[in-house]
């Protein structure tokens, strides 16, 4: 029985839901975290580093939320500042230089909306991240593991292959924001969640994502080990597929994929 978008949204809010810290320790060996954007600071809402999977070196980057209220606060609930995106850009350029694939784990309500974020150019940081990724000369795999919140998620989701965990959501705006702005009634959140078509099956049917990683029946948190086995299969399969593609083909395919996004008529 398929869950509604709203049910999925409730399910992924579970504090015990595994996130990037668990995925990194379960899936990657010899992981070393790398800090800082070399310009302003180190954003704790973004985790980045290098490790190996199946014997292959990769760069891992993603939103970090934590698994307790204290950790949530320390990591700003996974909402990056511009320096978080700039750290990510630095690490993906490093990955390109050393020919490592980049694996993103996306889980954010969105890029942070605050004074410092505006002062340091949140829009600019996301814009640069999107464009860098479009032309990055190394394979890019994105897995949306929880919330894929708008531009803050897209900045790490311009990828050759995009997967979502079964109960993850990905949307241009939160259903609450949608209901507040377009209906002037935030209580219509649930209705907005269905209308927005933000679930993994919806987005797969639109061609916005490439695949769905199954979760245990009660959600990823009921059996994190099982979830990690599924994730490992997908990652190893995709890394193998990438290894057969030349850079030129990879970049052409990536460009064509995003160039083709949109629904319109031309009569």
């Amino acid at each position: 029985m398929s869950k509604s978008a709203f049910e999925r949204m409730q399910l992924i809010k579970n504090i015990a839901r595994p996130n990037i810290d668990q995925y990194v320790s379960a899936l990657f060996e010899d992981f070393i975290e790398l800090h800082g954007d070399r310009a302003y600071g180190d954003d704790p809402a973004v985790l980045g580093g290098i490790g190996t999977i199946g014997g292959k070196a990769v760069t891992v980057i993603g939103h970090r939320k934590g698994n307790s209220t204290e950790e949530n606060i320390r990591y700003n609930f996974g909402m990056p500042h511009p320096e978080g995106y700039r750290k990510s850009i630095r690490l993906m350029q490093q990955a390109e230089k050393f020919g490592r694939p980049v694996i993103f784990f996306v889980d954010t309500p969105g890029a942070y909306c605050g004074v410092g974020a505006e002062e340091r150019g949140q829009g600019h940081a996301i814009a640069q991240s999107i464009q860098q990724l479009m032309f990055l000369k190394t394979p890019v795999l994105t897995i949306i593991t929880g919330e894929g919140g708008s531009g803050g998620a897209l900045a790490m989701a311009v990828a050759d292959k995009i997967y979502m965990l079964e109960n993850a959501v990905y949307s241009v705006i939160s259903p609450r924001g949608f209901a507040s702005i377009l209906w002037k009634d935030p209580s219509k959140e649930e209705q907005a969640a269905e209308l927005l078509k933000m679930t993994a099956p919806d987005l797969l049917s639109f061609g916005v994502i490439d695949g769905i990683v199954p979760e245990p029946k009660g959600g990823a948190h009921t059996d994190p080990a099982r979830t990690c086995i599924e994730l490992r299969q997908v990652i190893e399969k995709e890394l193998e597929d990438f290894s057969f593609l030349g850079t030129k083909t990879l970049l052409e395919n990536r460009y064509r994929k995003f160039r083709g996004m949109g629904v319109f008529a031309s009569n």
Partner: protein
Amino acid sequence: MILDMFKKNRNIAKELEGVPEVEQPKDVVVCKRCKNEVLRENYQRNLYVCPLCGHQSRMSAPQRIEMLCDEGSFKEHDRRLRTLNPLKFKGYTDKIENLHQQTGLTEAVVTGSAKIGGMPVAIGVMDTRFLMASMGSVVGEKLARLFEYATRKKLPVVLFTASGGARMHEGIFSLMQMAKVSAAAGKHSQAGLLYITVLTDPTTGGVTASFAMQGDIILAEPRAVIGFAGRRVIEGTIGSKLPAGFQSAEFAQDHGFVDKIVPRGELKETLQRILALHVGHHK
């Protein structure tokens, strides 16, 4: 029920687009900022800038094109692209049709080829009268095609941005336009071609977080609102009011995100100078 929806949408439109310039009889315009009456003729001759207080009101895309492009040089592209309703959002199709009737625009951006000071350019102008110039699939497609055209013809791109952000009515497809336009703009850049953005009031959200901030040279109109998050959203997050100049063009320049603030009267000349410095440059 359906009538209800329209009523709500109308209210929202008013709130988002601000109160329009009050139009008085006898060809008089009341300035939105200083509230003085100005003769329409003087106001137009002054490029929609109040001659008394300097307030620059928003311009429509056709007004902007007339102001900048050499007479008779503008040729519109892709006017036949039509907006669809992928989420089946109630009232969206009618809203687009009504805006088309009211403004004569087919969507929130006008694109085409033109000459500025005799130099050929590909030009795009966003128009806030059309759903706050929010970016849906058609806006994204027109801009992507504009960059592709400019890449083929080895032309610079001049883009006037203004936008409330992504077109929420189109859901995830509107988000994807940020990636699509960035892709086409990136190819244009790799061909060694010049891309100038002119940020006009207001440039926000997904447009700021994509092609508005990808120009080689980023100009802005004085006092234009430029930012990522909406002012009220930030105030809600931090729980206090923001100062008056927050997210202005001047603020963006002070923080290093705008090359030059150009008053409207100097815009054509400034663009001509920059274009002339890059004539013939491509790979």
